[in-house]
């Protein structure tokens, strides 16, 4: 194919480095295998089939790739956790649950570029020795499920999938497994339970690290869609070359998804850490809406702690300590963590000065109260009470003590649960109160009754 051009209005920003999203909104592009092959598709599979599995894993380790699903864990290192003397089948699972609020990137890959994902999965499966792989796809992507199945069929016809792939002796089948609209199925052990046909109750770690005890109690690698696509490009470039993209320890590109109060929301693939929050929001996304100013930002999906746009952060220790304004934060994993939040899934949600923080928090609390799997008491009860208290705040029925109670409830969830949903649900509350306490308190009144009628009834039962 000749020079790449994009559909009108969908041209990438000049700061973008399109690799994973090279074909998204590309002019003349379609999801068929013919189109993919014309563009050099499955060449990296051919290359990988000639490599040792250990060498593939090694390239991924050298590349420094960190998981794009939320935790930012190094992919190659995770692959290395499969027990060396394992005799059970190994499974690869591609996490296409894409359910963290604010995140919208995997959607475009599975709708527009399915073969990139299949090629990435093939190379990953080769590296870890898997012969069966599943794509766990959220139920709300019905069209993508059909599209991906068609792509899998096309790949089988060309013997990129199936047995003795391209005469190499390597076998792989990929299947689509659709979820059923539950956020907790994005958590890898909840996902595995769901794939086993059960309620998606997450498993406790240790001992249930999927790499050792995953699907059907066999070694299982769960990776995000975007992470798996990166593997293809690592094989193409070589790990060392790939590692030159981005910044040290924060290598490669990643897709940032910006939504909320900016002029140009959308997806932007950039080198990790090479652009700052200010460049992203003001230049790439066109700044705030007319007459508005930025107020707050959730930088990595709704579970990430909210940041104030007028904040400054002290990062580093001793001599290396420095002050960093909100707009100067580079969009990477480590600095975002040092600023007390996380880069998470890349979902950047922006709020301007027209937004009330109580309303924002209440919306988030409803999400987590609805999505808790209910297995751990602190999470099940806590998420519901946090929702009820923030309901009271937005209804103008809260007292100043309610804010304290809300904060107390959050800190009683955090760190006391089976899975990281506990943190996902409580961090937004903790951060919102620490950063916007005055604003929240201003919406309460001493004249309100401290306990809701419902809380009073419950209190009667326990005392």
């Amino acid at each position, binding site marked *: 194919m000749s020079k790449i051009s994009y559909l009108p209005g969908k041209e990438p920003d000049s700061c973008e480095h399109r690799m994973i999203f090279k074909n998204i909104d590309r002019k003349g592009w379609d999801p068929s295998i013919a189109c993919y092959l014309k563009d050099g598709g499955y060449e990296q599979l051919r290359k990988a089939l000639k490599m040792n599995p250990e060498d593939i894993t090694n390239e991924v380790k050298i590349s420094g790739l960190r998981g794009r699903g939320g935790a930012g864990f190094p992919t190659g290192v995770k692959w290395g956790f499969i027990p060396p003397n394992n005799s059970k089948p190994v499974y690869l699972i591609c996490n296409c649950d894409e*359910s*963290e609020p604010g995140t*919208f990137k995997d959607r475009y890959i599975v709708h527009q570029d399915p073969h990139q994902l299949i090629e990435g999965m093939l190379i990953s499966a080769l590296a870890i020795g898997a012969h069966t792989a599943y794509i766990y796809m*959220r139920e*709300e992507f019905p069209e993508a499920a059909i599209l991906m199945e068609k792509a899998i069929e096309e790949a089988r016809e060309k013997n990129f999938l199936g047995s003795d792939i391209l005469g190499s002796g390597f076998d792989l089948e990929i299947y689509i497994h659709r*979820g059923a609209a539950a956020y907790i199925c994005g958590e890898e052990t909840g996902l595995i339970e769901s794939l086993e*046909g*059960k309620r998606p109750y997450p498993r406790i770690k240790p001992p249930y690290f999927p790499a050792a005890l995953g699907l059907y109690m066999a070694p299982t690698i769960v990776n995000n869609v975007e992470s798996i696509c990166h593997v293809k490009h690592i094989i193409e470039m070589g790990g060392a070359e790939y590692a030159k993209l981005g910044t040290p320890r924060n290598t490669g590109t990643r897709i940032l998804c910006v939504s909320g109060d900016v002029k140009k929301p959308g997806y932007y693939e950039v080198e990790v850490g090479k652009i700052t929050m200010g460049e992203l929001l003001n230049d790439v996304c066109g700044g705030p809406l007319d007459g508005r100013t930025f107020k707050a930002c959730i930088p990595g999906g709704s579970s990430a702690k909210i940041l104030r746009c007028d904040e400054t952060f002290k990062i580093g220790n001793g001599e290396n300590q420095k002050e960093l304004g909100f707009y100067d934060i580079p969009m990477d994993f480590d600095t975002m963590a040092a600023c007390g939040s996380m880069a998470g899934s890349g979902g950047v949600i922006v709020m301007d000065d027209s937004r009330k923080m109580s309303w924002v928090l209440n919306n*988030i609390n409803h*999400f987590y109260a609805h999505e808790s799997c209910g297995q751990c008491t602190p999470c099940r009860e806590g998420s519901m009470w946090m929702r009820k208290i923030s309901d009271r705040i937005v209804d103008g029925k809260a007292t100043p003590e309610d804010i304290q109670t809300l904060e107390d409830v959050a800190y009683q969830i955090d760190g006391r649960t089976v899975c990281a949903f506990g943190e996902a649900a409580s961090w937004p509350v903790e951060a919102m109160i620490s950063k916007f306490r005055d604003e929240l308190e201003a919406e309460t009144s001493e004249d309100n009754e401290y306990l809701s009628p419902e809380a009073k009834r419950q209190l009667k039962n326990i005392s």
Partner: protein
Amino acid sequence: MKTQTTFPAFAVSPEIEDAAETRIAQYPNDQKRSAVLPLLHIVQHEFGFINREATEWVAQKLGLEPMQVHEVVSFYPGFREHAPGKYHFRVCRTLSCAMAGSAELMDRICELTGIDRSNSDSHHNPIAVSPCGLWSVEFAECLASCGTGPVCLVNDDFHEDVAPEKAENLIGQYNN
């Protein structure tokens, strides 16, 4: 008012048996239980919701107790135990869409289709159906298209940038 039924009653056809066998074959022979969700999807797609008979059929196909299937149906918001309308709207409720006006979109859809959501709640009774049985609505959580909110699904069709004032047009696409 009489509720119009828009879905056929549960009955197992050879096509459904075939589709089920294809899904069961995706999993290892001794792990048939994995096919619970795929089989439930087949049922719900065909019959609109999952009733007791369907639950028992799935259980029998996979060598499970009906309870093991029912606990799945009752957990996942994506599975329904009651009939929705012929056109089921799932409007994203989550933050970015809410900032873009999804609550107003929901109100407008209800107004135009005559749906009363006053008895709905997010957990036990999420779906509200219009008196004629043609339409139903439900709030969904983040549909992974936050940059183009408000978004919604109508059955399996995805719609983005549906500002409340576009509700009429959206419904018009299905009004038949």
